[in-house]
């Protein structure tokens, strides 16, 4: 595949991610921060996100498996997760976290367990998408092209 085509593919893919609501404007901000002095900024941040999220999700699952659930702790974890996801623009994950927090306030174990499943689902989805995106980027760079600048109006 030649560079132009790859770039167009990349653009379409990215657009679709935005349209489907996986990513929001914050992700664009991250992309803006990427420059010569910081060429891998987005990848680094997203990788950090993945690491953090794995840990958080494990903690969450364990916390909810306890016989008596410590909702404060659960809420704290969800808060963290919400923060991270909104920092990188993972919109659907963030929304799921918001819903999750409501159930935590209500101290609804059932609801929380359902939410954690949902959050996990969204997370893995967005992780998948982002990994695909990065793979595409690597291909473009390897082929000698450059990542196009996205001009999206919201």
């Amino acid at each position, binding site marked *: 595949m030649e560079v132009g085509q790859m770039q167009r593919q990349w653009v379409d893919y990215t657009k679709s991610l935005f349209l489907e609501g996986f990513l929001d404007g914050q992700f664009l901000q991250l992309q803006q921060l990427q420059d010569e002095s910081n060429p891998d900024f987005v990848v680094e941040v997203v990788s950090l996100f993945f690491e953090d999220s794995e840990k958080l999700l494990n903690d969450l699952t364990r916390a909810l498996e306890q016989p008596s659930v410590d909702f404060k702790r659960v809420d704290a974890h969800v808060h963290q997760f*919400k923060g991270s996801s909104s*920092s990188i623009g993972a919109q659907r994950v963030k929304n799921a976290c918001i819903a999750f927090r409501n159930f935590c306030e209500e101290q609804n174990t059932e609801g929380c367990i359902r939410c954690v499943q949902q959050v996990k689902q969204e997370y893995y989805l967005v992780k998948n998408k982002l990994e695909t995106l990065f793979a595409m980027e690597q291909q473009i760079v390897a082929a000698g092209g450059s990542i196009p600048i996205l001009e999206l109006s919201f």
Partner: protein
Amino acid sequence: MEACNCIEPQWPADELLMKYQYISDFFIALAYFSIPLELIYFVKKSAVFPYRWVLVQFGAFIVLCGATHLINLWTFSMHSRTVAIVMTTAKVLTAVVSCATALMLVHIIPDLLSVKTRELFLKNKAAELDREMGLIRTQEETGRHVRMLTHEIRSTLDRHTILKTTLVELGRTLALEECALWMPTRTGLELQLSYTLRQQNPVGYTVPIHLPVINQVFSSNRALKISPNSPVARMRPLAGKHMPGEVVAVRVPLLHLSNFQINDWPELSTKRYALMVLMLPSDSARQWHVHELELVEVVADQVAVALSHAAILEESMRARDLLMEQNIALDLARREAETAIRARNDFLAVMNHEMRTPMHAIIALSSLLQETELTPEQRLMVETILKSSHLLATLINDVLDLSRLEDGSLQLEIATFNLHSVFREVHNLIKPVASVKKLSVSLNLAADLPVQAVESLRDFRAPEFFPVQSDNHFYLRVQVKDSGSGINPQDIPKLFTKFAQTHSLATRNSGGSGLGLAICKRFVNLMEGHIWIESEGPGKGCTAIFIVKLGFAERSNESKLPFVTKVQANHVQTNFPGLKVLVMDDNGVSRSVTKGLLGHLGCDVTTVSSIDEFLHVISQEHKVVFMDVCMPGIDGYELAVRIHEKFTKRHERPVLVALTGNIDKMTKENCMRVGMDGVILKPVSVDKMRSVLSELLEHRVLFEAM
């Protein structure tokens, strides 16, 4: 003989003697019976008689005596035994009562006698009281006289009336022959006869003041008797009077205004005195009584007081009149000055207009002439005409400005204005003028020049500057540097005076009129600033520098958190090179995002994830601190308080910005409470961060951005 119970008298009845005895006894009895009756009658009439029972006793005694003598009448002839018994009884009783009475009288009579002495004593006392009453009445009379006199004297504040009245009243009260007042002359060496009772206008008798008799009177505050032959008492020829009446003199203190002290009344050391002389009628045996002398002394004091009051009144009336005159004069002067100013202004306005119209004609037509075909000489002439008329036009303008500046009718208008645009405008104004003269002008503005300043600036030349920080004001320093012909350092002091000419003044814009710099100086002074010129010497160019105080344009409400809806693009800094920032966030992802964001804007970012780390790292070098306040288990607010405690001075403290995932009222209030300078909602875009930093660095003000 038959025994009869008759008693025979002792002696034989002598017919004549018996008869006389008989009659005497009868009368004695009568008297004796009538005396008690009289006594009873008179005692009943009188109200007081303390010894009634004595009277009874006495009455009984007399009655019995009378009875005895009455019964005695029967014993002259033969009388029966009964009569004898009655007689005996009566005599016995009489004896008893009389003895009792005699004994009683021993007690009574001394008492009665002492009553008498007491009565005498009381009579004496009554006489004494009467005498004293008489004295008191006399004194009261005197007092009334004094009061009346004083009233008369004090009823007027006119000096002459006071003195005249005094003399008249004194004369009347004391029935004097003559009463006179001697006043000290202006020189103080003589006493002049000023007022007399009998003579209407005393001719100017004078006596020297240092006579012993006068000194004597002056040294005492009592009225003293003086000899009728002393010079002050010889007022008119003693025509046919043999025995001049006694004369009394008393001093009257004359108080100066400056030493009128009520408390020091008796200590009138260096005072002037007048002398009042009173003469009793000649050929009368009258003497001066003590109470009369007292009266005179009191009157003298009153007169002194009245005179001083009169003097004060005169003085204050004089002062008031003087003030009124001065007021009138001042008013007149003010009105004249106003008229003059108005006339001047009118003149200036009219003349300016009149002068400018031909000026404009000259300038316009000369410029037009310049455009036409001219010989070099003609061109030279036209250029000279143009230059001169420009000079003249500037001079006219400057004169008007300067006159308005000088009499303070020019007032600064306080308004917010855009500093940058002012400089740019001036630069633009000057550029064409300069280019015509083949000169280049460059404008340099310092990076942190505030955009908005408060104060009205007028008429300054091109700038290059840097401000000095302070809280509500900053100082603007503007420098105009040229590489022209420079100025002699000796001439520099003269530059700012009006119309002073110096030969080597740089003539780029001022045109050598001599007024321009003076006007600048006036304006700069109005703005509490300072202007000066530096030059190293002829040929080395010169620099004109001024510093003025401008205010920061006010923000609408510093204590609330106003919502910044739009960002002024032209003042946002694009980069914050080297700005040291500290970010505290426990979320790794958002920490690195924020770091990247700030790094992209050129900041030097340090990140920490806990309070201990934060406190370890924080220093005065960090200008801005971003901290997440929603960290569970870490109280960001508490940390903010601690930062405030650590950095007490405002300029040392870094700007504190809270990063938070939700902006609700509670969060905002907490942030304000702990003294945060701003609140940002995560996630934050690059543009938002940029504008946030711009604002924070400019104004250090509370705001919120979402």
